[in-house]
C-alpha cells in the first residue's frame, strides 16, 4: 500500500469578526490550497468539512460549504472533535485514500466564532463539559486548563513566569505572521504590571495573557495517494505517522492532572508508526490554547522530561533557533484559534516549513515535522508526523 501525501495547503487570515458568511470564509482557505496544489476542483474526488457546530447557525454545514466550493457531486461529509476537528478529518481522509476509495481528498476546516452573539457564545461555553455532572457547577474552558496549571505548579514548581515565557515566544512569531490575528508584541513585564490586561486573572492561576486569541478563520489541506501526489505535485509532504486518542469528559474519570493522556497516547502511536522518536523531530506545532497546554505538550511529546518543560522554554529551545522549534507561526495564542480551522492551519505551517517556504518564520532545513492538535480539555488528541 502506497503512502499518502499532502499536495496543497491554505488558510484564510485569522481575524476578529470576518465580514462574510461561513461558506465565504471556507472559500478563502480552500482557494489558497487549490492554487498551492496547482490542481483544479474537479481533481478532488471527496471532501471532508470540519467545524464545531455549536457556533454555526447553518445546520449540517458540509453540504453548503461543498456546494459553494464547487465540490458537488463528489461525496462530502462532516467531522467534529471540537478544536481538533480538522486533524481528525485528516486521519479520516488518510484512511479513505489508504483504503483505495479515493485518490484526492480536500479537508476544509472553518470557524466563524463571531457567527453568534457573545451572549450566545457564553451560553454555549457553559455546556462545554459534561453537562450532567460538571456544567451545573459553572465550568469554563480556561478553568479546566487552570486546574492542570495548578496541579503542574504544585508538583513541579512551574510558575506563572514560566508560562508567561511561552506567551512571549508566541507573540514573537505572531508579529511576523501576516495571517495571525494578534500581531502585537508581549513582554514579560506585562504579566507583572497590574495595569496591563495580560496580568488580569481569568481563571486562577491563568491570566488573560495565558489564553489564546479567539478568531474567525478557515484552513484547507489537500491529500492524495502516492501515485497521484507524485504526478500532481513537485514537493509532496508525506504523512509518516498519525495517532489519535480519547479521554473521559468528566475530570473525575481521569488519573493525570499534570499532562494530557491523549497527547501522550496519540504521540506514542504516531512515533511508532513513523518509526522515529521525539529526538528526530525538527519542528513542531502543538496545541497551545493556553500557555500550560504548550508546557504539557513539551513533556507529553518527549521534547522535555516530565516536569522539565519550564527548562525547555527558559533555555529558548523552542524558539526558531533552538533545538526543537515549537509554534514559530505564533501558535493558537497569537495566530488565533478558529476551532474547526486550527488543525489544518497547524498542518499548513509544518508543510510550508518542510518545503522551505515559511518566509521569515522558516526554520533551517527541517526534515521531520509534528502536529499535536487537542480537542476539548484533552478529550480528543491527534498527533501527525510529516516528512519530505
Amino acid at each position, binding site marked *: 500500500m502506497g503512502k499518502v501525501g499532502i499536495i496543497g495547503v491554505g488558510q484564510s487570515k485569522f481575524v476578529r469578526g470576518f465580514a462574510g458568511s461561513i461558506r465565504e470564509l471556507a472559500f478563502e482557505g480552500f482557494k489558497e490550497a487549490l492554487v498551492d496544489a496547482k490542481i483544479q476542483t474537479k481533481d478532488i474526488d471527496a471532501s471532508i468539512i470540519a467545524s464545531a457546530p455549536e457556533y454555526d447557525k447553518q445546520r449540517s454545514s458540509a453540504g453548503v460549504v461543498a456546494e459553494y466550493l464547487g465540490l458537488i457531486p463528489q461525496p462530502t461529509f462532516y467531522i467534529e472533535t471540537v478544536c481538533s476537528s480538522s486533524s481528525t478529518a485528516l486521519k479520516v481522509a488518510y484512511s479513505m485514500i489508504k483504503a483505495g476509495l479515493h485518490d484526492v481528498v480536500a479537508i476544509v476546516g472553518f470557524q466563524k466564532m463571531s457567527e453568534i452573539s457573545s*451572549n450566545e457564545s*457564553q*451560553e454555549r*461555553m*457553559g*455546556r462545554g463539559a*459534561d*453537562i*450532567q*455532572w*460538571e*456544567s*451545573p*457547577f*459553572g*465550568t*469554563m474552558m*480556561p*478553568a*479546566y486548563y*487552570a*486546574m*492542570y*496549571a*495548578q*496541579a503542574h505548579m*504544585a*508538583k513541579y514548581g512551574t510558575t506563572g513566569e514560566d508560562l508567561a515565557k511561552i506567551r512571549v515566544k508566541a507573540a514573537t512569531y505572531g508579529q511576523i505572521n501576516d495571517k495571525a490575528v494578534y500581531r502585537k508584541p508581549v513582554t514579560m513585564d506585562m504579566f507583572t504590571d497590574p495595569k496591563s490586561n495580560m496580568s*488580569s*486573572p*481569568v*481563571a*486562577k*492561576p*491563568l491570566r488573560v495573557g495565558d489564553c489564546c486569541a479567539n478568531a474567525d478563520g478557515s484552513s484547507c489541506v489537500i491529500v492524495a495517494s502516492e501515485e497521484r501526489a507524485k504526478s500532481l505535485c513537485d514537493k509532496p509532504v508525506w504523512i509518516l505517522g498519525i495517532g489519535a486518542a480519547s479521554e473521559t469528559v*468528566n*475530570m*473525575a*474519570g*481521569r488519573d493525570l*492532572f499534570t499532562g494530557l493522556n491523549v497527547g501522550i497516547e496519540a504521540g506514542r502511536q504516531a512515533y511508532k508508526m513513523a518509526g522515529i522518536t521525539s529526538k528526530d523531530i525538527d519542528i513542531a506545532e502543538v496545541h497551545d490554547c493556553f500557555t500550560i497546554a504548550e508546557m504539557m505538550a513539551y513533556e507529553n511529546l518527549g521534547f522535555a522530561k516530565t516536569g522539565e518543560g519550564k527548562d525547555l522554554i527558559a533555555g529558548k529551545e523552542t524558539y526558531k533557533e533552538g533545538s526543537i522549534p515549537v509554534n514559530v507561526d505564533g501558535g493558537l495564542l497569537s495566530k488565533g484559534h478558529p476551532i474547526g480551522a486550527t488543525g489544518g492551519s497547524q498542518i499548513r505551517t509544518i508543510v510550508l516549513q518542510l518545503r522551505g517556504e515559511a518566509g521569515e518564520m522558516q526554520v533551517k532545513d527541517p526534515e521531520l515535522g509534528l502536529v499535536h492538535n487537542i480537542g476539548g480539555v484533552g478529550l480528543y488528541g491527534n498527533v501527525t508526523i510529516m516528512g519530505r
Partner: protein
Amino acid sequence: MAKKEVDDRFKKFGTVSFTAITKTNDFISHLEDGKIMGTKCKECEAVYFPPRSDCFKCLNSNMEWFEVTGTGKLLSFSELQYGPVGFEKDLPYIIAILDYGFHKVFGRISDDIPYDGLKVGMELQTVPNTLSNGQLNYVFKQP
C-alpha cells in the same frame, strides 16, 4: 385518565441544570436527604462517581447506591473570574477535584474557604449544599 408524571428531579442540580431526565434521578433525592451518593455495580463491584445507571465493564444495569464519606485529597482547583450565562451571581467561585482513592469527585469549594486558603494535597470533605436560588449541589469543606 391521569397525566403521566415526568420524573425530572435532576433539573434541581447545580446553579443551572442542563439535564432534567436521567436514570440517576435518585441522586437528587439522596442529596435532599443530605447524602452524596455514587453507584456500585452489584455484578462486578465497579464503583462509579459521578453515578451511572449502566456498568460499561460488565454491561449490567444492576446498580446499588453507596455514600461518599470521609475526606478526599485536593488534586487541583481554579477560581473563576468569569462564568457562563446564569452563573454571574456566583462569581467568583472555585471549582476543584478531590481524590477519594477508589473514585474522584468534581465539584465546588465551599464559599467559606478563600482561594489563598487552598493547597493541593489538603484533605476536604464533600457536603450537600443549597444555593441561593434554591437549587442543590455539593461543595468541598474543611473536615
